[in-house]
């Protein structure tokens, strides 16, 4: 299996995760989308030294993964390319912000270290929440939810087709890579001298294939706006979930629950 095939398989695996059946999967995509957006907005709004307040925000993804029957390690594995980048964002903070904020076991902890950890946590939590949404909601469901929010049809169709087109691009790349390696045994990767023609061919083949798919859609009445099969309004349970989660997220934001729990034991 070459890299393109592996990438395609991973993409399809996320799609398959979204088709599982769990309490989280059964929730209305719109409710999940709104709660996730609220969670991300609230998470990034924490102040840079508010590490204790932020810590409690981990509960949302942890419970989400638990009830969604999605192993957390799957999230970290799928996002292995992005996680280091997210974690690297605050790496320079300890060099610029050296003021000691507190002592932990006699060791001074500077503001830079705290803000670095806060940034890392924010990034990781937001990625976890986004992946939870993707792994429990199909792209069609998300697009349907966006349509219910009166997002333009053109935009949602574009989003859906872009997502579907990635698999086409990877399909074509996989076939071309296999054909290349069959005639270049022992060679690792595609030689730099072939990159230009390889990319050109990939583009032409993908455009050709996309054109055929588009024609197939036209032949079945497509007029620029998807009629989503999953567009129905969700159950009351979905909105109870949304209200409860939103209330908890806002509570965690405006009351330092971690500090309150800590002081109860001190």
């Amino acid at each position, binding site marked *: 299996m070459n890299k393109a095939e592996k990438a395609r398989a991973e993409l399809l695996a996320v799609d398959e995760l979204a088709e599982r059946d769990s309490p989280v999967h059964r929730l209305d995509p719109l409710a999940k989308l709104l709660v996730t957006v609220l969670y991300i907005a609230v998470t990034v709004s924490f102040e840079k030294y508010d590490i204790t307040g932020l810590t409690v925000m981990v509960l949302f993804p942890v419970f989400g993964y638990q009830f969604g029957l999605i192993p957390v390690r799957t999230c970290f594995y799928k996002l292995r390319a992005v996680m280091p980048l997210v974690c690297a964002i605050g790496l320079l903070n300890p060099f610029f912000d050296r003021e000691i904020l507190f002592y932990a076991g006699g060791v001074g902890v500077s503001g830079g270290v705290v803000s670095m950890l806060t940034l890392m946590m924010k990034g990781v939590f937001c990625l976890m929440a986004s992946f939870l949404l993707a792994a429990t909601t199909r792209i069609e469901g998300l697009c349907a939810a966006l349509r219910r929010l009166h997002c333009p049809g053109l935009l949602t169709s574009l989003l859906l087709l872009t997502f579907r087109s990635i698999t086409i691009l990877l399909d074509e790349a996989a076939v071309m890579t296999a054909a290349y390696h069959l005639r270049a045994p022992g060679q690792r990767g595609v030689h730099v001298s072939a990159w230009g023609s390889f990319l050109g061919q990939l583009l032409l083949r993908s455009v050709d294939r996309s054109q055929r798919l588009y024609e197939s859609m036209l*032949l079945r009445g497509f007029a620029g706006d998807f*009629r989503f099969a999953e567009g129905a309004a969700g159950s009351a349970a979905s909105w109870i979930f949304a209200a409860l989660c939103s209330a908890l997220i806002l509570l965690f934001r405006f009351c330092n629950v971690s500090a309150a729990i800590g002081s109860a034991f001190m």
Partner: protein
Amino acid sequence: MLDFQNVSCAYPGGESVLHGMSFHIAEGEQVGLIGANGAGKSTLIKAALGLIGAEGRITAGGLPVNGKNLAEIRRTLGCVLQDSDDQMFMPTVLEDMLFGPMNYGASRREAERLADEALASLGAEHLKHRRNHGISGGEKKLAAIATVLAMHPRVMLIDEPTAGLDPRNRRALINVLGALPVTKLIATHDLDLVLELCDRVILLHEGSVAADGPAEEILRDRPLLEANGLELPFCLAGPPERRRERRET
């Protein structure tokens, strides 16, 4: 039902592919569209569906093929593409089947009823909830036909239905196509299939109609077929020469 009058067309920037083509297909006819590679079979189908512009007059179900009527034309003419992967672009068979009816205004429930009917008519109910990337070529072809049947077309335009199928799936598909009670135009190189399913054959050569008549007559006419880049169907030609020689020795 489908009428071509002096139809010519060319791809943008390319040379002419169809030249002054005229024929008429009546309701209930089973027509085979044959010809060598590049003869214009697929282009003819595209022109009928309004996917490429054409000069002359094309009508389907009494409506001229033009921008205004395209939606109705494409509902009347159901097209099964050569490559089922091009036809099945949604994640599951069911969603693909709902796509067409819902675009034509059916509710989700109504579309699902149409999908169930189409799958039942093909004996392919087991495919309903399968993922498109996980089914075999033969199943995918059946599913592709089902997506078109769910739209209740009056004419089915089928491009290379047996391409890439093994003998068992080919046989199953021929049985399915034979049982479909609609007008059919089948573009194919599989002349045995044409002999079995079609009453009439339109033979294309370099974008023109080289012959149009009963399948039994045209498909037995070795000189005509060979002059147009084809051979007799296998069932009429008998085993190939070399094999016969080997057996005799």
